[in-house]
């Protein structure tokens, strides 16, 4: 039985999930900063 396949699938999925979480963290931060920037511009227009 090729155990390499099962090991690779377990670790590769974890690596993909890790990258996905880190990307999600960065996107959430960028979204929050954009939100603040948007409100700041609205306030400046008023």
């Amino acid at each position, binding site marked *: *039985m090729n*155990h*390499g396949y*099962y*090991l690779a*699938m*377990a*670790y590769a*999925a*974890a690596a993909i*999930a890790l990258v996905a*979480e*880190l990307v*999600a*963290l960065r996107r*959430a*931060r960028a*979204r*929050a*900063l954009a*939100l*603040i*920037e948007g*409100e*700041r511009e609205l306030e400046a227009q008023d």
Partner: protein
Amino acid sequence: MNADKPQMNAVKAKATTSPLPSMNFFHYSSPSTFFGLAGRLAPWFFALAALLAVAGLYVGFGLAPTDATQGEVYRVIYLHVPAAWMSMLLYFVMACYGAVAITFNSRLSAMMARAIAPTGAWFTFVALWSGAFWGRPTWGTYWVWDARLTSELVLLFLYFGFIALANAFDDPRRGDKAASLLAIVGIVNLPIIYFSVHWWNTLHQGSSVKLTGTSMHVLMLTGMLLMTFACWMYAIGATLTRVRTIILERERRTRWVRSIAGVA
């Protein structure tokens, strides 16, 4: 009244000129002060996590011997066991933050609970996924409705429920309370997960590591513990990073957020 004034002013002056403001337990319980601390600490936790993971994988894959009965596939433990431990630990910590948030109406505790949930769900998913790819060559199946596996799946749904409930309200404080309550109720699942292998006949094996000792080879144990600490450090780093975003969103109308938004 006036006689008390000089004394009060002296107390105020002492409080403001204290050389150790950080020694105050509640100093970092404010989102504005915790924001900076989290930003300073998070990169260190990520770096520590990376170092420990490299060391753990080196010991686990390079030094630890092959298992006599399971062969090479046992090396999934360096991912599966730490992820499973972290999934339970993070839920416990999340529920504790939830309890503090409800009891003391603390904003930062509720934010911390929210910040932990996605990483907890992530670890639960990794534990289930890696377990499936360990189960196929050892048990002959990816999944079985065994007590340990099912209760771990329930944990994943509890995390999803927490995240969904926290975001289901227009008023985030109401979302915090509802989700915290769910987290506290769901804590009953943790002993079920842990003791499931003792309470029921399960396909899942019992614990190899106990407080009284272990049946594992020392190198296998070392690799697993290194990976556990790596996961722990990663979880703290990810939580601190996420809570900063939550603080920015929640406090976006405050002056201090406006002032740091350009450099955060």
